[in-house]
Protein backbone atom coordinates (compact mmCIF):
# COMPACT_ATOMS: atom_id res chain seq x y z
CA UNK A 1 0.00 0.00 0.00
CA UNK A 2 1.27 3.44 -0.84
CA UNK A 3 1.91 5.60 2.18
CA UNK A 4 -0.08 8.52 0.71
CA UNK A 5 -3.28 6.28 0.50
CA UNK A 6 -2.92 4.93 4.04
CA UNK A 7 -4.68 7.93 5.66
CA UNK A 8 -7.75 7.60 3.41
CA UNK A 9 -8.07 3.85 4.16
CA UNK A 10 -7.95 4.62 7.91
CA UNK A 11 -10.79 7.11 7.51
CA UNK A 12 -12.87 4.54 5.60
CA UNK A 13 -12.14 1.90 8.29
CA UNK A 14 -13.07 4.27 11.11
CA UNK A 15 -16.23 5.25 9.21
CA UNK A 16 -17.15 1.54 8.82
CA UNK A 17 -16.58 0.93 12.55
CA UNK A 18 -18.78 3.86 13.53
CA UNK A 19 -21.45 2.65 11.07
CA UNK A 20 -21.48 -0.86 12.59
CA UNK A 21 -21.78 0.43 16.15
CA UNK A 22 -24.48 2.96 15.38
CA UNK A 23 -26.56 0.52 13.33
CA UNK A 24 -26.58 -1.90 16.31
CA UNK A 25 -27.55 0.94 18.62
CA UNK A 26 -30.34 2.03 16.30
CA UNK A 27 -31.86 -1.48 16.16
CA UNK A 28 -31.71 -1.90 19.95
CA UNK A 29 -33.24 1.51 20.59
CA UNK A 30 -36.05 0.77 18.17
CA UNK A 31 -36.85 -2.49 19.93
CA UNK A 32 -36.82 -0.80 23.33
CA UNK A 33 -39.38 1.74 22.07
CA UNK A 34 -41.67 -1.06 20.90
CA UNK A 35 -41.49 -2.58 24.39
CA UNK A 36 -42.68 0.57 26.09
CA UNK A 37 -46.09 0.66 24.40
CA UNK A 38 -48.77 -0.63 26.74
CA UNK A 39 -50.82 -3.42 25.22
CA UNK A 40 -54.47 -3.95 26.13
CA UNK A 41 -53.58 -7.34 27.63
CA UNK A 42 -51.12 -5.70 30.04
CA UNK A 43 -53.74 -3.15 31.05
CA UNK A 44 -56.30 -5.90 31.64
CA UNK A 45 -53.74 -7.68 33.78
CA UNK A 46 -53.19 -4.52 35.85
CA UNK A 47 -56.96 -4.05 36.20
CA UNK A 48 -57.43 -7.62 37.39
CA UNK A 49 -54.60 -7.20 39.92
CA UNK A 50 -56.26 -4.06 41.30
CA UNK A 51 -59.66 -5.76 41.65
CA UNK A 52 -58.02 -8.75 43.35
CA UNK A 53 -56.22 -6.43 45.76
CA UNK A 54 -59.47 -4.65 46.62
CA UNK A 55 -61.28 -7.97 47.06
CA UNK A 56 -58.57 -9.61 49.21
CA UNK A 57 -59.88 -8.11 52.46
CA UNK A 58 -63.55 -7.89 51.43
CA UNK A 59 -63.36 -4.13 50.78
CA UNK A 60 -64.68 -4.45 47.24
CA UNK A 61 -67.71 -6.46 48.37
CA UNK A 62 -68.44 -3.94 51.16
CA UNK A 63 -68.31 -1.01 48.69
CA UNK A 64 -70.75 -2.85 46.41
CA UNK A 65 -73.08 -3.88 49.27
CA UNK A 66 -73.19 -0.28 50.54
CA UNK A 67 -73.45 1.15 47.01
CA UNK A 68 -70.41 3.27 47.89
CA UNK A 69 -69.55 4.29 44.34
CA UNK A 70 -67.46 7.29 45.43
CA UNK A 71 -65.35 5.05 47.65
CA UNK A 72 -64.90 2.56 44.85
CA UNK A 73 -63.89 5.34 42.42
CA UNK A 74 -61.34 6.69 44.93
CA UNK A 75 -59.89 3.21 45.54
CA UNK A 76 -59.48 2.57 41.81
CA UNK A 77 -57.94 6.01 41.31
CA UNK A 78 -55.47 5.24 44.06
CA UNK A 79 -54.50 1.76 42.95
CA UNK A 80 -54.39 2.14 39.15
CA UNK A 81 -51.25 3.64 37.64
CA UNK A 82 -51.27 7.32 36.80
CA UNK A 83 -52.52 8.00 33.30
CA UNK A 84 -54.89 5.04 33.16
CA UNK A 85 -58.56 5.86 32.55
CA UNK A 86 -61.22 3.50 33.82
CA UNK A 87 -64.92 2.96 33.52
CA UNK A 88 -66.59 0.44 35.78
CA UNK A 89 -70.07 -1.05 35.58
CA UNK A 90 -71.55 -3.26 38.30
CA UNK A 91 -74.25 -5.86 37.66
CA UNK A 92 -76.08 -8.08 40.12
CA UNK A 93 -76.46 -11.86 39.69
CA UNK A 94 -79.33 -11.30 37.24
CA UNK A 95 -77.11 -9.01 35.13
CA UNK A 96 -79.07 -5.89 36.05
CA UNK A 97 -76.90 -2.80 36.27
CA UNK A 98 -76.87 -1.54 39.85
CA UNK A 99 -74.55 1.47 39.74
CA UNK A 100 -76.86 4.42 39.19
CA UNK A 101 -73.91 6.79 38.76
CA UNK A 102 -70.92 6.56 36.44
CA UNK A 103 -67.83 5.09 38.08
CA UNK A 104 -65.08 6.60 35.96
CA UNK A 105 -62.19 9.04 36.09
CA UNK A 106 -62.70 10.66 32.70
CA UNK A 107 -63.37 9.97 29.06
CA UNK A 108 -61.57 7.42 26.93
CA UNK A 109 -59.61 8.84 24.03
CA UNK A 110 -57.54 5.80 23.25
CA UNK A 111 -57.96 3.24 20.49
CA UNK A 112 -56.76 0.44 22.76
CA UNK A 113 -59.26 -0.38 25.47
CA UNK A 114 -58.73 -3.31 27.82
CA UNK A 115 -61.59 -5.19 29.44
CA UNK A 116 -61.76 -7.17 32.69
CA UNK A 117 -64.70 -9.27 33.80
CA UNK A 118 -64.66 -9.97 37.54
CA UNK A 119 -67.05 -11.80 39.84
CA UNK A 120 -67.04 -10.36 43.36
CA UNK A 121 -68.64 -12.30 46.20
CA UNK A 122 -69.62 -10.24 49.19
CA UNK A 123 -68.75 -11.43 52.71
CA UNK A 124 -72.14 -10.19 53.88
CA UNK A 125 -74.37 -12.61 55.83
CA UNK A 126 -76.80 -12.52 52.93
CA UNK A 127 -75.06 -14.17 49.98
CA UNK A 128 -74.59 -11.70 47.14
CA UNK A 129 -72.39 -11.72 44.13
CA UNK A 130 -71.72 -8.98 41.64
CA UNK A 131 -70.37 -9.00 38.12
CA UNK A 132 -67.94 -6.19 37.41
CA UNK A 133 -67.09 -4.95 33.93
CA UNK A 134 -63.96 -2.82 34.08
CA UNK A 135 -62.80 -0.96 30.97
CA UNK A 136 -59.30 0.53 30.99
CA UNK A 137 -57.36 2.74 28.60
CA UNK A 138 -54.13 4.70 28.67
CA UNK A 139 -55.01 8.41 28.77
CA UNK A 140 -53.34 10.32 25.94
Amino acid at each position, binding site marked *: *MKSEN*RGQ*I*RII*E*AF*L*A*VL*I*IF*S*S*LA*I*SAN*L*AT*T*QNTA*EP*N*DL*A*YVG*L*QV*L*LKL*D*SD*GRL*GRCLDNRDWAGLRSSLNLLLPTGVSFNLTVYD*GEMRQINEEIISNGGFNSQEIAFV*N*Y*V*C*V*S*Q*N*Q*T*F*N*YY*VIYLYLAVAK
Partner: protein
Amino acid sequence: MKSKAIFRANRSGQLLIVAALAIAILLSSTTMYVYELSGERQSTEDFFISDFILAVKQGSRNAVISALANASNGGEKTVLADDLDSLSQAYMRLNKRGIWRLSYTVLNDSHYDGGVWLSWGNGGLGVSSAYANFTLRVYDSTANITMSYTVNITTTITINGYYTSNGTEKTINLFCRVFNEGKSALAKNLTVFYENLGVWVPVNASNNLSVRDYGNGTYALSFNVSVPSEIVQVSVHAQDMRCILVKASIPCREG
Protein backbone atom coordinates in the same frame (compact mmCIF):
# COMPACT_ATOMS: atom_id res chain seq x y z
CA MET B 1 12.30 -2.08 15.44
CA LYS B 2 11.29 0.14 12.59
CA SER B 3 9.68 -2.74 10.61
CA LYS B 4 7.66 -3.76 13.74
CA ALA B 5 6.35 -0.22 14.13
CA ILE B 6 5.37 -0.13 10.46
CA PHE B 7 3.56 -3.51 10.88
CA ARG B 8 1.65 -2.15 13.92
CA ALA B 9 0.70 1.00 12.03
CA ASN B 10 -0.51 -1.09 9.05
CA ARG B 11 -2.70 -3.35 11.26
CA SER B 12 -4.24 -0.67 13.56
CA GLY B 13 -7.14 0.01 11.14
CA GLN B 14 -8.03 -3.67 10.96
CA LEU B 15 -7.93 -3.89 14.77
CA LEU B 16 -10.36 -0.99 14.85
CA ILE B 17 -12.81 -2.97 12.68
CA VAL B 18 -12.36 -6.09 14.83
CA ALA B 19 -13.05 -4.00 17.95
CA ALA B 20 -16.10 -2.48 16.26
CA LEU B 21 -17.33 -5.96 15.34
CA ALA B 22 -16.87 -7.09 18.95
CA ILE B 23 -18.90 -4.13 20.18
CA ALA B 24 -21.54 -4.84 17.54
CA ILE B 25 -21.74 -8.47 18.69
CA LEU B 26 -22.22 -7.27 22.27
CA LEU B 27 -24.97 -4.91 21.17
CA SER B 28 -26.59 -7.64 19.08
CA SER B 29 -26.58 -10.04 22.02
CA THR B 30 -28.28 -7.31 24.08
CA THR B 31 -30.82 -7.01 21.29
CA MET B 32 -31.35 -10.76 21.36
CA TYR B 33 -31.88 -10.58 25.12
CA VAL B 34 -34.48 -7.84 24.63
CA TYR B 35 -36.22 -10.12 22.11
CA GLU B 36 -36.14 -12.97 24.61
CA LEU B 37 -37.75 -10.73 27.22
CA SER B 38 -40.44 -9.68 24.79
CA GLY B 39 -41.14 -13.37 24.13
CA GLU B 40 -41.58 -13.92 27.85
CA ARG B 41 -43.87 -10.90 28.09
CA GLN B 42 -46.22 -12.57 25.65
CA SER B 43 -46.98 -15.11 28.36
CA THR B 44 -49.00 -12.42 30.20
CA GLU B 45 -51.90 -14.68 29.18
CA ASP B 46 -50.57 -17.27 31.65
CA PHE B 47 -50.43 -14.69 34.43
CA PHE B 48 -53.95 -13.67 33.43
CA ILE B 49 -55.27 -17.19 33.86
CA SER B 50 -53.48 -17.67 37.17
CA ASP B 51 -54.99 -14.41 38.40
CA PHE B 52 -58.44 -15.51 37.27
CA ILE B 53 -57.91 -18.68 39.28
CA LEU B 54 -56.93 -16.49 42.25
CA ALA B 55 -60.13 -14.50 41.72
CA VAL B 56 -62.21 -17.70 41.79
CA LYS B 57 -60.41 -18.80 44.98
CA GLN B 58 -61.07 -15.40 46.54
CA GLY B 59 -64.73 -15.62 45.51
CA SER B 60 -65.16 -19.07 47.03
CA ARG B 61 -63.42 -17.94 50.23
CA ASN B 62 -65.77 -14.96 50.50
CA ALA B 63 -68.77 -17.24 49.89
CA VAL B 64 -67.67 -19.54 52.76
CA ILE B 65 -67.20 -16.51 55.07
CA SER B 66 -70.66 -15.23 54.12
CA ALA B 67 -72.26 -18.64 54.77
CA LEU B 68 -70.52 -19.03 58.16
CA ALA B 69 -71.57 -15.51 59.19
CA ASN B 70 -75.12 -16.46 58.28
CA ALA B 71 -75.10 -19.89 60.00
CA SER B 72 -73.45 -18.59 63.18
CA ASN B 73 -76.04 -15.81 63.47
CA GLY B 74 -78.95 -18.24 63.44
CA GLY B 75 -79.13 -19.25 59.75
CA GLU B 76 -79.59 -22.76 58.44
CA LYS B 77 -76.51 -25.00 58.21
CA THR B 78 -77.46 -25.84 54.63
CA VAL B 79 -76.68 -22.23 53.72
CA LEU B 80 -73.10 -23.12 52.80
CA ALA B 81 -74.11 -25.70 50.17
CA ASP B 82 -76.84 -23.38 48.84
CA ASP B 83 -74.43 -20.44 48.47
CA LEU B 84 -71.73 -22.55 46.83
CA ASP B 85 -74.31 -23.92 44.38
CA SER B 86 -75.21 -20.39 43.34
CA LEU B 87 -71.55 -19.44 43.07
CA SER B 88 -70.53 -22.34 40.85
CA GLN B 89 -73.50 -21.64 38.57
CA ALA B 90 -72.48 -18.00 38.39
CA TYR B 91 -68.95 -18.87 37.28
CA MET B 92 -70.24 -21.32 34.68
CA ARG B 93 -72.66 -18.73 33.28
CA LEU B 94 -70.44 -15.72 33.30
CA ASN B 95 -66.99 -16.76 32.18
CA LYS B 96 -66.78 -16.26 28.46
CA ARG B 97 -63.07 -16.99 28.18
CA GLY B 98 -63.68 -20.74 28.10
CA ILE B 99 -65.31 -23.36 30.27
CA TRP B 100 -64.78 -22.77 33.96
CA ARG B 101 -66.39 -25.39 36.18
CA LEU B 102 -66.27 -25.00 39.95
CA SER B 103 -67.42 -28.02 41.93
CA TYR B 104 -67.37 -28.40 45.69
CA THR B 105 -67.97 -30.80 48.57
CA VAL B 106 -68.77 -29.62 52.07
CA LEU B 107 -67.23 -31.51 54.97
CA ASN B 108 -69.43 -33.90 56.93
CA ASP B 109 -67.77 -35.65 59.87
CA SER B 110 -68.07 -35.91 63.64
CA HIS B 111 -67.71 -32.12 63.97
CA TYR B 112 -68.91 -30.64 60.70
CA ASP B 113 -72.48 -30.86 59.50
CA GLY B 114 -73.03 -29.54 56.00
CA GLY B 115 -69.57 -28.01 56.17
CA VAL B 116 -70.41 -25.97 59.29
CA TRP B 117 -69.20 -26.58 62.84
CA LEU B 118 -70.46 -24.48 65.75
CA SER B 119 -68.99 -25.53 69.10
CA TRP B 120 -69.94 -23.07 71.80
CA GLY B 121 -69.09 -25.05 74.90
CA ASN B 122 -68.77 -24.36 78.59
CA GLY B 123 -65.02 -24.92 78.83
CA GLY B 124 -63.95 -21.42 77.82
CA LEU B 125 -63.52 -22.31 74.16
CA GLY B 126 -65.86 -21.45 71.31
CA VAL B 127 -65.42 -22.38 67.66
CA SER B 128 -67.36 -21.34 64.57
CA SER B 129 -65.98 -22.99 61.47
CA ALA B 130 -66.84 -23.79 57.86
CA TYR B 131 -64.97 -26.19 55.60
CA ALA B 132 -65.33 -26.94 51.90
CA ASN B 133 -63.21 -28.62 49.23
CA PHE B 134 -63.24 -27.15 45.74
CA THR B 135 -62.20 -28.40 42.33
CA LEU B 136 -61.80 -25.89 39.54
CA ARG B 137 -61.60 -27.10 35.94
CA VAL B 138 -60.55 -24.66 33.25
CA TYR B 139 -60.88 -25.57 29.58
CA ASP B 140 -59.57 -22.63 27.65
CA SER B 141 -57.98 -22.03 24.26
CA THR B 142 -54.69 -21.56 26.10
CA ALA B 143 -55.08 -23.79 29.15
CA ASN B 144 -56.47 -27.05 30.38
CA ILE B 145 -56.18 -26.91 34.14
CA THR B 146 -57.69 -28.91 36.98
CA MET B 147 -56.91 -27.76 40.46
CA SER B 148 -58.20 -28.55 43.92
CA TYR B 149 -58.12 -26.40 46.98
CA THR B 150 -59.65 -26.22 50.43
CA VAL B 151 -61.26 -23.29 52.19
CA ASN B 152 -61.41 -23.46 55.96
CA ILE B 153 -62.74 -20.41 57.79
CA THR B 154 -62.54 -20.63 61.56
CA THR B 155 -63.23 -18.06 64.24
CA THR B 156 -62.24 -19.09 67.74
CA ILE B 157 -62.68 -17.45 71.13
CA THR B 158 -61.02 -18.41 74.40
CA ILE B 159 -62.02 -16.99 77.75
CA ASN B 160 -60.78 -17.45 81.27
CA GLY B 161 -61.44 -15.54 84.46
CA TYR B 162 -62.19 -15.36 88.16
CA TYR B 163 -64.06 -13.15 90.58
CA THR B 164 -63.29 -11.26 93.76
CA SER B 165 -65.96 -10.72 96.44
CA ASN B 166 -66.79 -7.26 97.77
CA GLY B 167 -69.50 -8.05 100.33
CA THR B 168 -72.63 -9.06 98.45
CA GLU B 169 -71.15 -8.05 95.07
CA LYS B 170 -68.69 -9.98 93.01
CA THR B 171 -66.23 -8.34 90.62
CA ILE B 172 -65.64 -10.61 87.66
CA ASN B 173 -62.44 -10.31 85.64
CA LEU B 174 -62.30 -12.01 82.25
CA PHE B 175 -59.61 -12.37 79.62
CA CYS B 176 -60.86 -12.99 76.16
CA ARG B 177 -58.92 -13.77 72.99
CA VAL B 178 -60.26 -13.90 69.45
CA PHE B 179 -58.66 -15.78 66.54
CA ASN B 180 -59.28 -15.97 62.80
CA GLU B 181 -57.81 -19.13 61.25
CA GLY B 182 -55.55 -19.51 64.28
CA LYS B 183 -54.21 -15.95 64.14
CA SER B 184 -55.13 -13.21 66.57
CA ALA B 185 -57.98 -11.09 65.24
CA LEU B 186 -60.05 -8.14 66.31
CA ALA B 187 -63.64 -8.42 67.45
CA LYS B 188 -66.30 -6.16 65.98
CA ASN B 189 -68.32 -6.39 69.17
CA LEU B 190 -68.35 -8.31 72.43
CA THR B 191 -71.42 -9.04 74.54
CA VAL B 192 -71.15 -10.53 78.01
CA PHE B 193 -73.83 -12.45 79.95
CA TYR B 194 -73.92 -13.96 83.43
CA GLU B 195 -76.28 -16.52 84.84
CA ASN B 196 -78.46 -15.55 87.77
CA LEU B 197 -80.98 -18.07 89.12
CA GLY B 198 -81.03 -19.93 85.80
CA VAL B 199 -81.51 -16.82 83.68
CA TRP B 200 -78.84 -15.35 81.41
CA VAL B 201 -78.58 -11.63 82.09
CA PRO B 202 -76.71 -9.27 79.75
CA VAL B 203 -73.94 -7.24 81.31
CA ASN B 204 -74.26 -3.49 80.70
CA ALA B 205 -73.18 -0.14 82.11
CA SER B 206 -75.20 -0.75 85.31
CA ASN B 207 -72.70 -3.54 86.10
CA ASN B 208 -69.78 -1.10 85.79
CA LEU B 209 -68.60 -2.98 82.73
CA SER B 210 -65.15 -1.99 81.57
CA VAL B 211 -63.45 -3.36 78.48
CA ARG B 212 -59.75 -3.00 77.83
CA ASP B 213 -58.80 -3.60 74.23
CA TYR B 214 -55.15 -4.54 73.81
CA GLY B 215 -55.44 -4.08 70.04
CA ASN B 216 -54.18 -7.58 69.27
CA GLY B 217 -57.35 -9.58 69.71
CA THR B 218 -57.00 -9.72 73.49
CA TYR B 219 -59.65 -8.09 75.68
CA ALA B 220 -59.78 -7.72 79.44
CA LEU B 221 -63.30 -7.34 80.80
CA SER B 222 -64.38 -6.45 84.30
CA PHE B 223 -67.88 -6.06 85.78
CA ASN B 224 -69.83 -6.39 89.01
CA VAL B 225 -72.68 -8.82 89.65
CA SER B 226 -74.85 -9.69 92.61
CA VAL B 227 -75.16 -13.43 92.40
CA PRO B 228 -75.57 -15.56 95.54
CA SER B 229 -73.96 -18.76 94.15
CA GLU B 230 -70.26 -19.52 94.64
CA ILE B 231 -69.75 -20.26 90.97
CA VAL B 232 -70.83 -17.63 88.44
CA GLN B 233 -71.50 -18.82 84.91
CA VAL B 234 -70.29 -16.24 82.40
CA SER B 235 -70.72 -16.25 78.65
CA VAL B 236 -69.04 -14.04 76.02
CA HIS B 237 -70.52 -13.59 72.54
CA ALA B 238 -68.04 -12.18 70.04
CA GLN B 239 -68.56 -11.12 66.48
CA ASP B 240 -65.37 -10.83 64.47
CA MET B 241 -64.76 -8.25 61.73
CA ARG B 242 -66.37 -10.65 59.22
CA CYS B 243 -69.57 -10.74 61.34
CA ILE B 244 -68.97 -14.39 62.28
CA LEU B 245 -70.49 -15.02 65.70
CA VAL B 246 -68.76 -17.23 68.26
CA LYS B 247 -69.71 -17.88 71.87
CA ALA B 248 -67.93 -19.38 74.85
CA SER B 249 -68.81 -19.66 78.52
CA ILE B 250 -67.00 -20.60 81.73
CA PRO B 251 -67.82 -21.14 85.36
CA CYS B 252 -66.03 -18.37 87.28
CA ARG B 253 -64.66 -19.14 90.71
CA GLU B 254 -63.23 -16.90 93.41
CA GLY B 255 -59.60 -16.16 92.63
